[in-house]
């Protein structure tokens, strides 16, 4: 129960929404789907701005990129026939992995997920690998664009919840993902049963040239550390290489000495450490099949 929630707004324009948010930045929050907000028992929330009428629920492909409106639900991504093949299906795969519950997927929005649950979200890892960029409207009604990692580096995210004294970044409008031409993408995950959150997950988008050499590599790990992260060591190792079994084998042992794995109710850090190489090898193998 949001014990102190007193006011609910459903504005019809972005300007109106931004005005409401800036009037009470510490106690007024965005309500997209609500699966995270309403499942919390936050005492700091006094007002919510329901953005479902702002027409931010959009999904389109333009020039090889996919534009996802902030309030697009995970289920609508799953149901979109044109996204099944996009980037090896990793976007769709991550949305499916997010929850086995259709109820949750019908309500949960991509925007909500990357704002409220990005640290433990497989979808966040996939978006990292897809070089996602976000478009947002600041509280001073300026439209800004930035990479998703810059987005997550903003103080409001680094210091925990809103209401911690940091001014929120604004209203998320759109996420744009792209995959370079002649690239392959894969998404792998390990869990005991399908309904359980991933113990570890990983996404990769690799671009190849005519000689099957890797020209660009983006690999992100999810559910491994306390937030999704790229693997720069691995990415530079893959640069210029052909994905032979030997390369894949040694790739599995590269790349996370500096990343501390998480211990939680599901698994220990040392287990995650042990299976991450397995996961990476599977990921790269799948990529090499796609190529």
């Amino acid at each position, binding site marked *: *129960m949001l*014990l102190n929630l007193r006011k609910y707004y459903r504005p019809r324009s972005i300007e109106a929404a931004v005005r409401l948010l800036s009037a009470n930045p510490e106690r007024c929050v965005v309500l997209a789907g609500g699966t995270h907000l309403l*499942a919390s028992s936050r005492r700091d929330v006094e007002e919510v701005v329901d953005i479902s009428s702002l027409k931010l629920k959009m999904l389109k492909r333009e020039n090889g990129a996919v534009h996802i409106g902030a309030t697009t639900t995970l289920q609508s991504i799953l149901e979109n026939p044109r996204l*099944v093949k996009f980037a090896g*299906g990793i976007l769709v795969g991550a949305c499916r992995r997010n929850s*086995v519950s259709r109820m949750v997927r019908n309500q949960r929005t991509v925007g909500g997920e990357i704002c409220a649950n990005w640290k433990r979200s497989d979808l966040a890892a996939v978006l990292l690998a897809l070089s996602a960029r976000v478009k947002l409207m600041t509280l001073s009604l300026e439209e800004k664009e930035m990479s998703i990692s810059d987005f997550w580096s903003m103080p409001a995210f680094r210091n925990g919840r809103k209401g911690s004294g940091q001014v929120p970044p604004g209203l998320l409008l759109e996420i744009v993902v792209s995959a370079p031409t002649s690239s392959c993408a894969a998404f*792998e*995950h*390990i*869990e*005991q*049963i*399908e*309904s*359980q*959150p991933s*113990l570890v997950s990983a996404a990769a988008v690799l671009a190849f040239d005519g000689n099957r050499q890797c020209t660009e590599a983006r690999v992100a790990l999810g559910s491994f550390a306390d937030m999704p992260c790229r693997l720069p060591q691995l990415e530079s190792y893959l640069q210029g290489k052909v994905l032979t*079994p*030997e390369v*894949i*084998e040694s790739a599995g042992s590269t790349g996370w000495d500096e990343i501390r794995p998480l211990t*939680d*109710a*599901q*698994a*220990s850090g*040392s*287990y995650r450490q*042990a*299976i991450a190489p*397995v996961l990476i*090898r*599977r990921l790269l*193998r*799948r990529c090499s*099949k796609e190529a």
Partner: protein
Amino acid sequence: MPTREFKSVHQNTRRVDSVKLASGKGTFVDDIKMDGLIHAKILHSPHAHARIKRIDVQEAERLRGVRCVLTYLNIPRVPYTTAGQGWPEPSPYDTVMFDSVVRFVGDRVACVAADSEEIAERALDLIGVDYEILPANFDPRKASDSGIPRLHLEPDKRGIHSPQRNIAAHVLADVGDAERGFAEAELVHEGEYTVHYVQQASIEPHITITWMDEDGRLMVRTSTQVPFHVRRIIAPLIGLPVQKIRVIKPRIGGGFGGKQEILIEDLCAMVTVRTGRPCRLEYTRAEELHAARTRHPQIVRMKTGVRKDGTLTAISMDILENTGAYGTHALTVQCVSGSRALSLYRFPNIHFEANAVYTNLPVAGAFRGYGSPQGFFALDSHMDELAEKLGLDPLEFRRRNHVREGEPTPIAEVLGEGREGYKQVIQSCGLDECIERGAKEIGWKTHRNPDPRAWILGPRVSDSSNAGISDLKSEISEKDRDSNSKQTNLKSEISDKDSDAKLKPTNLRSEITDKDSDARSKPSTLKSEISDLKFGVSRRLCRGVGMSCTMQASGIPGVDMGAAWIKMNEDGSFNLKVGATDIGTGADTMFAQVAAETLGTSPDKIIVYSSDTDMTPFDPGAYASSTTYISGNAVKKACEQAREQILEVAEEMLDPIKGTAAHPAGKESSTITRPDTKDLVVHNGKVCAPDGRFVTFDQVCLRSLYQEHQFQIQGHASHMSYDSPPPFCAQFAEVEVDAETGIVRVLRLITAVDCGVAINPKMAEGQIEGAVAQALGYALTEQMVFDEKGRPLNLSFKDYNIYTAVDMPELKSFLVETYEPTGPYGAKAIAEIPINGVAPAIANAVYNAVGVRIRDLPITPEKVLNGLKSLQLSQSSAAQV
């Protein structure tokens, strides 16, 4: 085998309540509106062990809308047990409604009742508490050590075995001479097995609504398995005599033992008594997950003596049970662990010792199986280990040694539930057939892995020769994703590619069996194979098969007693009042079937009303697998009484002169004789005479109520038993272990149960399927986890993973029907037994798959992976020598 054709029993009668439940009408506890209802909320302790130095409720009391605040300062101190058991309860009286000491994170500190849940929540925030934090212990092994805090030293607490050593309960039982038995053995094997904290997780939380009626009596409408125990146990706590309390049990959203407890009724009732207002108290899911009840974790040490030919000579079983902060069900659960595990096989010499100790962790209570899942995890793992040492097939080893019809189970006599038991002799046992059916279904001869260590020598993942498998699998998973349809293309792909790839024999076997089982399996098996192929690319998948044999009981001998009343109505229907508690199990329907069978009518003519302390006779409640066997027999006896009366009235009516029954066409009255009651037969709502004349039930009742020698046709009976015939069960699991990650996937789970005659076979199947789903969680995914301060880490279903519809493996159940002469129409019990053997069957299957023995639950991927790595290490170091 059933000795005659049944009309109502042994039928798949539609449940009496399913229509209203399908319509969402339910009428569960919370499905009522009451004027003036106030809501209660509990303040729980944030500390694992602390003394309340100061508690200030003034500000909370002053908040507008707050009706009362309860703490240890304004509640009389009356020690009791929350265990829903018969009197005198075999659990220690170590609990008080509120105490000045809190003993686990989640323990009660205060209770607020207010006009709304929201106001109650706010009021909780306004209660000021100063705690003196005390040292806490979370390790049962240390519970009796010096320097470890003692939890219950207060002099007014009773029934604790040894407060000075933190031992809530202790049991010692011997049959024969175990030491001598070990001396006679040719092989002695020891093992230690541990089982963990899990939760019943019924989808409906604990909920109670109480109010005072016009006569100043307290009405308690609660989600409970034990209404009569609730009434008796809360009486002294709230200062009302039993006669001033009525407990009503409406529809219940699952219990599984979690509601065999007086968890919140006392608080809700106290609020009503203090304020005069109706009060509602419902647990949140977060509260359910740490402040309700759990299964008892145990550390079980087993030592068995055996001869080389497989005969057992002795067993010693030692249990260290963690009962959490309070000792509810502590003694009886460990007794059951012992008496079940030690009754199944012929052990001529038995030594059993068990200690239940206090720790500053959530309170363990009753949970389906009640000690059996723990005991059998240990026993069935142990039996497999023994079989391996002896070089015997584990199935044969079990078959050779299990108890049979006509044989006694000596441990049952010395080990009852909390007291001495009664001599038990097995009068029905279908275990052999259970084993046979299950073994055939799983393919014991074809699907057991002959070499569990083969994976170590298998192709390394990076070998190019292995590329065959990885290419193959990735192709399949691509197709799977693209096409969205599953079956036939894939099968042919597998068989084509297989012949190309160079594979080591055992891996090949698992590929081949894929094909084989594909060919004859139903779509759902195929689904599980494909969905796991979809998971990834290139891995070592190792399959194995394991089994377990288990037993339970039917009621607590010499303790459980149930009663029933039946009366007849003028349209040939009957009102059946039973004390027994249907918690979603279908008991009401089962009673209707038993009654209909006895009376000679159909189940839809029986109106069942159950579990109301004013309106129905006594019953201990839904636990100990007693409802069919004990309460069902009471129903049968009551109906037999009523049937006698029906026959007497019918006899009068069939008198040729004075009677009112019609004469059959063409027959002279002089040729008709008055039949004797013993020649009359009830059938289809009629009483039939040998000469073909009959009277209908409504005619009989009209006459008896209104016309001649008027009386109410009715029956009443109680039933208790010194027998407790065990149901038997054999379970088989096929698993697939990913040797790279330790992930265990259960492919198939076969259960064969001997429950005597199944009164309603479909309902019995439903019990099996539900119990198995719970047991899968117990074996693999469910685990209550705590941090170093004893704080629970899983407070929602996100972190406490129970199986969903997409996680289930293929299930098959068989009802092996025997005929239990002491049961109602040959029935025994089924509700608990199917949960007992799943975890050991899976553990045994994992061992068969990869040679890793997991002796502590749950079987997490981490434990399996660690086991795999040790094996690999020891193999490579052995190779180097």
